[in-house]
């Protein structure tokens, strides 16, 4: 699925550029899709940049969007989500073995995340809980669920509307580090964010 999107985006982009009126088309598109009252103030589509940005606009509101959240609403595209993280949007947090409490050193990270989410007030985010490879599949799905919920609760306490946050657990599936030592495990015990729209 991810691959399809990755392949699709450049194709869609080049097609639009080819007809030579990409911005105009997109702008109309955006306007027509932002009919809900909360999203009346739709942004002007930027002159240049990845097509993902244009798609983004219909889902964001507020003038600060361009600053930090311009890639935010690309559906399910990992590359762009990572780019958003890199630009200071949403950071993953990590956990101790078999634990789901937020560690002290991650509180400032979540404060940043919360601040970004408050600014990008229409963005919906999925919090994904993961574990290291040790232990049983079922326990780890439950543990990942607890980790994602810990993060959700923490963000809610910092003023983020809980209805914008969903959680999912992948247990020990999809490790970011396929190694088998403590260093790899530490990286894999995490909660990360996927921007839904």
């Amino acid at each position: 699925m991810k691959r399809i999107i990755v392949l699709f985006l450049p194709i869609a982009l080049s097609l639009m550029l080819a007809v030579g009126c990409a911005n105009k088309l997109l702008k109309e598109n955006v306007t027509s899709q932002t009919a809900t009252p909360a999203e009346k103030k739709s942004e002007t589509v930027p002159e240049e940049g990845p097509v993902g940005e244009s798609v983004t606009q219909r889902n964001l509101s507020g003038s600060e969007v361009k600053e930090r959240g311009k890639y935010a609403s690309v559906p399910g595209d990992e590359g762009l989500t990572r780019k958003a993280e890199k630009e200071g949007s949403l950071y993953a947090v990590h956990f101790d073995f078999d634990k789901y409490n937020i560690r002290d050193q991650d509180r400032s990270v979540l404060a940043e995340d919360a601040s970004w989410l408050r600014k990008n007030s229409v963005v919906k985010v999925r919090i994904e809980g993961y574990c290291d490879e040790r232990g049983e599949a079922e326990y780890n799905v439950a543990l990942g669920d607890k980790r994602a919920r810990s993060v959700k609760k923490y963000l809610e306490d910092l003023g983020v509307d809980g209805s914008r946050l969903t959680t999912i657990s992948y247990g020990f599936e999809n490790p970011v580090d396929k190694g088998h030592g403590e260093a790899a495990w530490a990286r894999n015990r995490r909660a990360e964010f996927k921007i839904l729209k």
Partner: protein
Amino acid sequence: MRAALIVSASAAGLGYEHKTIFFLALGISPDAARRVGFNLKRPRASVGTGDCHMKTGAIIIALFVLLGSFSDAMAKEYIDLSAPTVKRIPLAIGDLTYMGAQPRDTKEAAAISEVKNELSNALSGDLAFSNLFNIIDSRAFIEDPSAGGISETEMFKRARAGGADTYVKGGFLLDREKLTVELRFFDCVEGKQILGKRYTVSSGNPRRLIHYFSDQLYEELTGKKGVFTTKLLFVSNRTGNKEIYLSDYDGRGAVQITRNGSINLSPQWSPDGKKVLYASYKKGWPCLFILDLRTGRDTAVSDKKGINIGGRFSPDGGRLALTLSTKKSPGLFLLDLNTGVYRQLTDNYGIAVSPAWSPDGQRLAYVSDSAGNPHIFMLDLATGETKRLTYDGRYNSSPAWSPDGKTIAFSRSDNGLFNIWTMKPDGSGLTQLTFERDNRSPSWSPDSRYIVFSSESHGVASLYIMLSDGTGLTKLDTGRGSSTSPAWSPFLQ
């Protein structure tokens, strides 16, 4: 291509009803399968000759001779599995001879040779797995293939001279799509045939025929049902993602039964062996599904918000114990499959997963972190009372209740690597069964004699079977990739 698919489905060695799904899954109707010569029939067990079943009296005599036991004159079984130490009987396995005419061409010769290899491999595998025999490689001194036949008396004499008290031999005949096999088991001390059978199956299915014979031999010798025609479910990542597979008890003939490209976890059997309960992310988050192996129908049974995992059929098949996180934390629930009504069982802040029903359906063993780290607890369903069973170990997980109700197997870790342990249902009698690699997910054979589990080394997991005391460790050949989360079927015959 079609023919190849059919062979692989037939290798799973299922009965007619069970096969149907695989043909459907492969896009082949059972009718089409028949047209290309696949024989959708159960093996017919027919008595070969009049001397097949020895009389009970003779069995008792043989028992004395073989085991030197004088304790129980009324014993019906050849081998008493309840004895403190089961003495292994020396057994010679004879060559399986081809009973037909000379092959017409090299293609036919190759087909005969392949069937012979499959039969021989399955037979020696089953006999070794039974842990009843001390197998002696003695073909040469019993029978000389070049020199016609020998008399039975001479055969018994030679076997005993070679140290074998028992002897198994057989022959087979391949006729187009039909395979006929004769198998005989002899007591060389008494000079008697204990069991003689002739079977006919489709030629694509030699292993199943041997498993069928092994069941009958095992029952003849021990008075207990054999597990050779039972099946395993497990998870394999051989396609690049985790899908559910169904194989023979020995891991052979694995057939993929989910094809959704998502993550599929922890398959479980319905008590009647006709359905598979599993967790899958195919709807986007972990939900529980039931796959009917006869019809191929796949139904979502629990798709609540949050996680739906760790489903287990109650012994009567009417309810599921499962974990939901609809409230703030993953807890245990009961789902009535007729009414669809959920009942909450645990209400902790922490985690409660992996319920294991007692065979009488009265209690659930499960894993909870309410004591700070994962331990095994017991819940009495009538009273709602919980009792903690484990106190040692950093991480205790995946309890599995033996079908005879006497033992709970589980996995435990102190340092990151897991091992399989057993204990009594009251938490006493702790015994460590494995000591090497990383071992998880124990599941009992329906006769409570064996435990299958996954064992990981260097990032690759394989399935292993051992006797319930930890001896007789056997690695299964399930094919490529990592095989995890095995679930042993109930008796299917």
